[in-house]
């Protein structure tokens, strides 16, 4: 559950950095709207994770008061916003996974997780439509936009494999019906990604260099900077309330 929540939290925080800095006004608003949805999802998921843990930590405590090694988000999501193409590719690779994930999570034996998935799915559909169309528009756009989005994909593709990282934690949860069977998730994701890339006339890089570690708390150099922003108020003024 932390993995689900941390993904939303860290990507939401990253997108939030674009507030007032988007390439055009409409896109600034769109990206921060998506950030807001993600932060909302993180709140629901982390609050529930804290409840299940039963150690008196709520969503805020989990979000603001853990150490870097305790965060379990994907490495992909902590990568910098870069240029607009980087932001869009990062978001697209993630949305293409989250939509089918939530579609399956609705069938979870855990009723609260199912409720969170039902709510989040509606929002995620909007996000995926938005990023898919931008990938196509940039890829099949001008020579420069094509080059840039291809470069973004070349750069971020090495983080895509980690999306389907699975260990004994996932297997245990699938066995108990909390996580639904996710075995077909990868093929659905691949289908979405490939068909959009074909339409966008961009290609998946041929090298197989892969990075992973986020799910185990081993992060890239960027993570510390995100946390210092995210946690600043709680670290400077412990237990402050808004």
């Amino acid at each position, binding site marked *: 559950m932390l993995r689900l929540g941390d993904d939303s939290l860290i990507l*939401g925080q990253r997108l939030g950095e674009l507030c007032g800095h988007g390439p055009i006004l*409409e896109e600034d*608003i*769109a990206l921060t*709207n*998506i*950030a*807001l*949805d*993600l*932060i*909302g*999802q993180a*709140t*629901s998921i982390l609050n529930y994770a804290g409840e299940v843990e039963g150690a008196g930590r709520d969503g805020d405590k989990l979000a603001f008061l853990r150490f870097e090694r305790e965060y379990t988000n994907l490495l992909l999501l902590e990568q910098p916003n870069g240029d607009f193409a980087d932001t869009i590719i990062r978001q697209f690779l993630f949305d293409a996974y989250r939509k089918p994930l939530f579609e399956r999570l609705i069938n979870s034996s855990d*009723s*609260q997780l*199912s*409720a*969170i998935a*039902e*709510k*989040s799915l*509606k*929002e995620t559909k*909007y996000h995926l*439509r*938005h990023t*898919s*169309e*931008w990938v*196509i*528009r940039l890829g099949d756009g001008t020579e420069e936009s094509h080059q840039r989005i291809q470069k973004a994909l070349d750069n971020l593709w090495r983080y895509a494999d980690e999306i389907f990282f699975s260990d004994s934690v996932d297997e245990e949860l699938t066995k108990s019906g909390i996580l639904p069977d996710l075995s077909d998730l990868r093929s659905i994701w691949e289908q979405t990604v490939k068909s959009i890339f074909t339409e966008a006339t961009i290609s998946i890089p041929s090298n197989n260099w892969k990075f992973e570690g986020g799910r185990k708390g081993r992060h890239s150099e960027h993570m510390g900077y995100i946390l210092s922003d995210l946690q600043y108020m709680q670290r400077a003024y412990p237990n402050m309330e808004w």
Partner: protein
Amino acid sequence: MVTKDQIWEWLEEVSDPEIPVLSVVDLGVVRDASFEENYWSITITPTYSGCPAMQVMEYDIKAKLKEKGIEYVKVRTVLSPAWTTDWLSDKGKFKLREYGIAPPENEVDKSVLFAEPTMVPCPKCNSRNTRMVSQFGSTACKAHYQCNECQEPFDYFKCLK
């Protein structure tokens, strides 16, 4: 003893902080009101996961009921069944249009950049000749449109199902 109907009536006086013409009842955010042993339990459901208005609504509901003499109120947030724009009351839709926000049409918009977006009549001049400026508007629940006839830029309360 205050009746349930009375509570609902009072909740009609609590407005959405972002769209003040709508009450939390019009919006379909209030799902239930019930008396439990010694307090009133009000169940609400968020429009969008991250909607910042939800906390304000919770606070306003408590403040309104307190003003009416109800001391003990608990506001409970439930996520399922997930909110849809179908829960927006007819009165709510009418008030939205009067306020200059186009109410949700009965279909989810599938387009972002390419396909034809949902046709939304202009709340000012009723022309059907309008265009979508952006799928994401001033708040999570709205898209940004403009009327090609009277040039009025307006918000469209987008359909969520």
